[in-house]
C-alpha cells in the first residue's frame, strides 16, 4: 500500500473537486471512517438535490461505516476492493481524471474518496424529481399508446429501448453548451442508417460552440442549412411510437436532456403532412384525408389571391349566374378588396394568436366575440363584403387542417406575398408566386437529402397510404443501407 504520495491527500482532493464544481452551491461533503483496526479516512461528495440520499445512506454509508472489518494495511487497489465488496450500488467504477469526476457530480453521482488516494470511486445515485410519463398534450392520437417523452434523458432512452429490442439500436452521447453542459444522445439503428450521413451530422454537432442549449429547436437552428427559410426543416414528436417508426426508416433521433421533444434527421417535406392516425386507420380514409390536407395547402395560399384577380382583373371569368349577387354584395364597400382581405386575414391571425395563450374559459369568449360579432359588425359597417369575409374565413379554417403546427404557420405566412403579387400582377402574379414556391422547395437540401422530391417507389406513402403489408421497402429519399423492410408475406405467391 502506497501512502507516500503526498499530493493526493483527502483534503486536497476535496478542495480540488470543490473548485472544479464551483464554490457557491449545495455541494455536500461527508467524512467518515472505514474499518476498525487501521481504519481509513474517507469522504463522499455529492450535490444536494441531484443525488438520491436514501441510496447514499443505505447502500454506501451503511455498509462502509458499519460493516467493514478488513485490515487495509497491506492491501493494494483499495478502491477496487472497497467498491467491489461493500458498495451495494450498481454502476460503480473507478475514475482517475478529476475533470470527469466534477462532471459526474453535476449529474447527480456520488464520489467516494479514500485517504491518500489519487483515484475516485464514482457511484451512480442519480435522483431528483421528474415529471411522470403522461400523454403529450399537443399530440393526441385516438388509438395510439398514451406515453410521451419526459425531460429525463434516461427515461426517454429506456422508452425507445423498450420498443426496439434490436441489438443494432445504438446511442452516442455528446455534451453541448459551454455553461449548460446539456447531454445530447443521438439514437439510430446501426445497420440501417447511412454511415456517411451519420458522420456528417456528428461532425456538425461537434462544431457547435454555444452558451446553453435549452431545447431541441436551438440545436436544430444551429445545424440546419437554410436558416432563413420559411419552411421548417426538422420534424419531431413527443410520442415514442412516432420516433420508433422514424428510426425504422433510417433516421437519427436527437434526444436532449431537459426537453420532451425529440427531433429526427433528415426530414422531408411530405412528413409534415403525415400523422400517426394515418397509419392506424383505414386505407381509403387515409387517402381522402391526405388529399384533404393537400387541398388545404392549395386553398390557404391561393383562394384569396384568386378572388382578388377575379374581382379586379378578370371579371369575364366570374360565373355568369353569380355575378348579380356578387355585385350586390360588393356595392358600397369602402375598402378595396385587397385591403379588406388583408385586414380580415390580420384580424383572424390576431384572434388565433390571442386564443393560443388564453386560459380556456376566456378563449371561448374570444372566439364568440371575434368570430361572430366582429365579422357581423364589419359586414354591417360595409368595411368588407360578405364574399370577402367568406374567402378569408375559408382560408384560415383550411390552414387548421395542416397537421404540423409549424408548417401551418409557414403556409399561412405565404398568403401575404401571394396577395400582394396577385393584386399587382393578376394571374401572372399567382403563377409567379406558385412557381417561386415550387422552385424554392425543390432547391432546398439538408446535408445532401433533398427536401421536396417525389420518387416513384415512395408513392406508397406520400399521397396515399398503401396497406402496411405492402410497404416492403424503406423510403428512398432517406439515405439508408438496408432497403428491405419486410417480405411480401401477404402477396399472391404466399397464398
Amino acid at each position, binding site marked *: 500500500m502506497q501512502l507516500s504520495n503526498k499530493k493526493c491527500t483527502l483534503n486536497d482532493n476535496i478542495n480540488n473537486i470543490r473548485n472544479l464544481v464551483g464554490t457557491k452551491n449545495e455541494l455536500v461533503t461527508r467524512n467518515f471512517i472505514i474499518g476498525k483496526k487501521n481504519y481509513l479516512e474517507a469522504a463522499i461528495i455529492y450535490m444536494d438535490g441531484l443525488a438520491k440520499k436514501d441510496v447514499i445512506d443505505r447502500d454506501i454509508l451503511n455498509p462502509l461505516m458499519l460493516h467493514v472489518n478488513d485490515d487495509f494495511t497491506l492491501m493494494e487497489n483499495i478502491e477496487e476492493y472497497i467498491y467491489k465488496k461493500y458498495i451495494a450500488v450498481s454502476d460503480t467504477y473507478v475514475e482517475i481524471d478529476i475533470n470527469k469526476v466534477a462532471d459526474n457530480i453535476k449529474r447527480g453521482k456520488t464520489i467516494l474518496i479514500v485517504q491518500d488516494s489519487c483515484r475516485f470511486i464514482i457511484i451512480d445515485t442519480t435522483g431528483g424529481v421528474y415529471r411522470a410519463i403522461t400523454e403529450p398534450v399537443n399530440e393526441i392520437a385516438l388509438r395510439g399508446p398514451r406515453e410521451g417523452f419526459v425531460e429525463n434523458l434516461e427515461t426517454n432512452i429506456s422508452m425507445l429501448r423498450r420498443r426496439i429490442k434490436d441489438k443494432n439500436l445504438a446511442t452516442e452521447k455528446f455534451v453541448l453548451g459551454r455553461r449548460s453542459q446539456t447531454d445530447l444522445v443521438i439514437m439510430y439503428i446501426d445497420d440501417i442508417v447511412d454511415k456517411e450521413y451519420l458522420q456528417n451530422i456528428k461532425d456538425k454537432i461537434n462544431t457547435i460552440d454555444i452558451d446553453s442549449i435549452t431545447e431541441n429547436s436551438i440545436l436544430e437552428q444551429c445545424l440546419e442549412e437554410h436558416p432563413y427559410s420559411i419552411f421548417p426543416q426538422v420534424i419531431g414528436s413527443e410520442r415514442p411510437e412516432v420516433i420508433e417508426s422514424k428510426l425504422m426508416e433510417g433516421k437519427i433521433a436527437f434526444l436532449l436532456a431537459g426537453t420532451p421533444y425529440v427531433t429526427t434527421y433528415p426530414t422531408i417535406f411530405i412528413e409534415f403532412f403525415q400523422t400517426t392516425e394515418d397509419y392506424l386507420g383505414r386505407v381509403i380514409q387515409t387517402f381522402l384525408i391526405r388529399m384533404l390536407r393537400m387541398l388545404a395547402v392549395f386553398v390557404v395560399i391561393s383562394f384569396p389571391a384568386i378572388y382578388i384577380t377575379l374581382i379586379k382583373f378578370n371579371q369575364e371569368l*366570374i360565373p355568369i349566374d353569380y355575378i*348579380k349577387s356578387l355585385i350586390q354584395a360588393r356595392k358600397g364597400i369602402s375598402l*378595396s378588396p385587397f385591403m379588406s382581405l388583408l385586414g380580415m386575414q390580420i384580424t383572424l391571425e390576431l384572434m388565433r394568436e390571442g386564443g393560443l395563450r388564453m386560459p380556456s374559459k376566456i378563449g371561448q369568449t374570444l372566439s364568440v366575440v371575434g368570430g361572430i360579432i366582429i365579422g357581423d359588425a364589419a359586414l354591417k359597417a360595409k368595411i368588407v363584403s360578405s364574399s370577402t369575409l367568406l374567402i378569408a374565413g375559408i382560408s384560415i379554417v383550411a390552414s387548421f387542417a395542416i397537421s404540423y403546427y409549424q408548417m401551418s404557420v409557414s403556409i399561412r405566412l405565404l398568403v401575404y406575398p401571394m396577395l400582394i403579387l396577385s393584386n399587382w400582377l393578376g394571374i401572372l402574379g399567382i403563377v409567379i408566386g406558385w412557381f417561386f414556391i415550387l422552385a424554392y422547395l425543390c432547391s432546398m437540401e439538408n446535408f445532401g437529402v433533398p427536401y421536396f422530391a417525389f420518387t416513384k417507389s415512395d408513392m406508397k406513402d406520400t399521397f396515399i397510404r398503401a396497406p402496411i403489408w405492402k410497404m416492403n421497402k424503406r423510403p428512398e429519399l432517406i439515405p439508408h443501407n438496408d432497403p428491405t423492410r419486410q417480405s411480401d408475406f401477404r402477396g399472391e405467391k404466399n397464398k
Partner: protein
Amino acid sequence: MLIIEKHKICILITVTLIYILCFIGVKGELVENLQIPVGVGADIDSANTYKVPFLAYSFEDDKITSRIYNGNSKSLGETRENRQLKSATKSMIGLTRVFVFSEHIAKFGLRNFLDICINNANINDRALCVICKGTSEDMLQYKVEGYPNSAEFIDGMVKNLQEFNFFSLQYTLIDLLVRVDTEGRNALLPIVEIKDSTIETTGLAIFKKDTMVGKADLKEARIINILKENNVKGILTLQKDSKKFINCYTVSKRKMKCDKINGKYKFIITLDLKGNIVSNELYDNINNDHTVLKKFEEDMKIDVEKMCNESINKIKCEYKTDVLDLGRIAASKYGKGTGTDWNKVICDSDIEVNVKFSVITEGRGDF
C-alpha cells in the same frame, strides 16, 4: 461565387425594386364599377351605321334593373367609343348571355361581328345567338314580366328550346363561328319576335356562310331539325280530326350515309325514332292489343317518311344552301378542299329518308 453569396441582400433589393417598378401604372377596375352587358344587340340601319346596344345591369339599393346603352358608328369597333360617351361606368366585353342580331344585319352579313368576337379574348363563347324581327334595341328593351330583363328571358328560352320541336342546343357563339366557314356546314339560328305581349320563338333562320338567305317557319323548322340534328326530342302527331289524335313524345337518332353514283350524290338518312305515347284517342286498345300497337308504329313510320320526303325536295333547293349539312358527310368520304360547291351539289342530289319507329313507353294508361 463568393461575391454573389455576400451580395445576396443586394440581389434581393434589386428583385423587389423590379417588382415595384412593374407595379407602377397597373390599374384594374373592380367588378362593381363595371358595366356588365347581359345582352348585346347588333343592327345596321339604312345609312350603313352599325348600332350595337348593350343591355347592362344597374343596381339601386337591393333592386336590380337594366338599361340600354347605345353605341352607333360606321365601324363595329368604334361603337365602343361611342357607347362609353353615354355611360357612367366602364364598358366591358364579356359575361354576355345573349347576342341578338336583327334581321337587317343578318341579311347584310355577320362576318364583321363574328370577326370582332374572335378577336376579343374576353367574349363569352357560350353566349346564345338569336335573330330578332325588328330592331335589336326594341327586343332588348322589352320588359318581360317576372324577369329582370329580356336577355335573361331569351337566354332561358333558347336553352329550353331543346325540350321540344326537335331543336338542339347548337346556337352558341362558338357553334356559329365553327359553322359559318366550315366546308359542308351551314349555320341555323332561332328567330325570336315580340308576339302577343311576350317574346316567342317563331322559326329558324337559314344562313349561307354569314348571310341570312331565308326563314323557315315553325312547321318547316321542325322537319329541318329532325333531319339535321341527332338525339333531339319533340312531339309527333297522327290526327284524324280535332277529337281523334295521338301524340307521341319522340327521341330521334339520325344516321347518314352517302354514296356517289355516276357523279351524282345519293344520301340516305335513317331516322331511328323512339316514342313515348303522351295522349291517345285515335287507336283503341293500344295498350293491350299487340297488333294495334304494331299498326300504329307502321302508320307513324309511313306518315313521317311521307312528311320528310315531301319537304326535302322543297328544302334542298328552296334556300339554295345545304341546310342539312349533308356536304360535310360527302366531304369526309370523298375529299375536302376539292373546290366543290356543296350547295349546288346537294340541290342536284338524291336524298332518301328511311324511318324506324318504335314505342318505348305508354304512360300510365289509356282513358
